[in-house]
């Protein structure tokens, strides 16, 4: 059985992973978007720019998993409840946008997936707020 005696203080490494990694991803994403709009669609440089944020997002996943592993059991439970709330909503958004696209409603670029995905963070935050309230 594993029971730690003292909750460790956040290390410099964990602070970097909590703040710098998400910031780096956001910067990489918007840099890629800005770059893609300037180059020829379908070109090699457009492909490279589209894939540019992927390693940053992989680092973000690593940082998130590490942060969750550093939480106590209630913290992990709340993360699970937030993700259980957010994931089906994200799936719903993706397939609904896909079906709307198939149905011919693809004229509005305001609601396409590249613009929509940041909104998928909202259900996660809502789920986390609900979990916080439940166990407060």
């Amino acid at each position, binding site marked *: *059985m594993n*029971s*730690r005696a003292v*909750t460790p203080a956040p290390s410099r490494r964990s602070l970097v992973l909590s703040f710098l990694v998400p910031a780096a991803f956001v910067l990489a994403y918007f840099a890629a978007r800005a770059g893609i709009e300037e180059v020829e669609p379908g070109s090699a440089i457009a492909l490279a720019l589209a894939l540019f944020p992927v390693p940053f997002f992989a680092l973000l996943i690593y940082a998130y998993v590490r942060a969750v592993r550093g939480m106590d*059991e*209630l*913290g992990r*439970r709340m993360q699970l409840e937030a993700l259980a709330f957010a994931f089906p909503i994200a799936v719903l958004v993706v397939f609904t946008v896909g079906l709307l696209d198939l149905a011919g409603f693809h004229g509005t670029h305001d609601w396409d997936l590249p613009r929509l995905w940041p909104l998928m963070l909202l259900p996660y935050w809502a789920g986390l707020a609900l979990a916080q309230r439940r*166990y407060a």
Partner: protein
Amino acid sequence: MKNRLRLLRAERDWSQAELAERLGVSRQTVNAIETGKYDPSLPLAFALARLFEQRIEELFQPDDTPVVRNP
């Protein structure tokens, strides 16, 4: 699940934060256990029992105690 955590903590004059530090969990976790909003895992329940020098069943009781029928 009902528990005697708040009582035992008060007897030792520990704050929730102090108990949390001794257990290696957050203060929110201690509060959630005390108020019955969260049932701890078995390892955490054993850690609590060890800390308060009690048996687990002396610390935690089910909400609805089963009725014992006469044979």
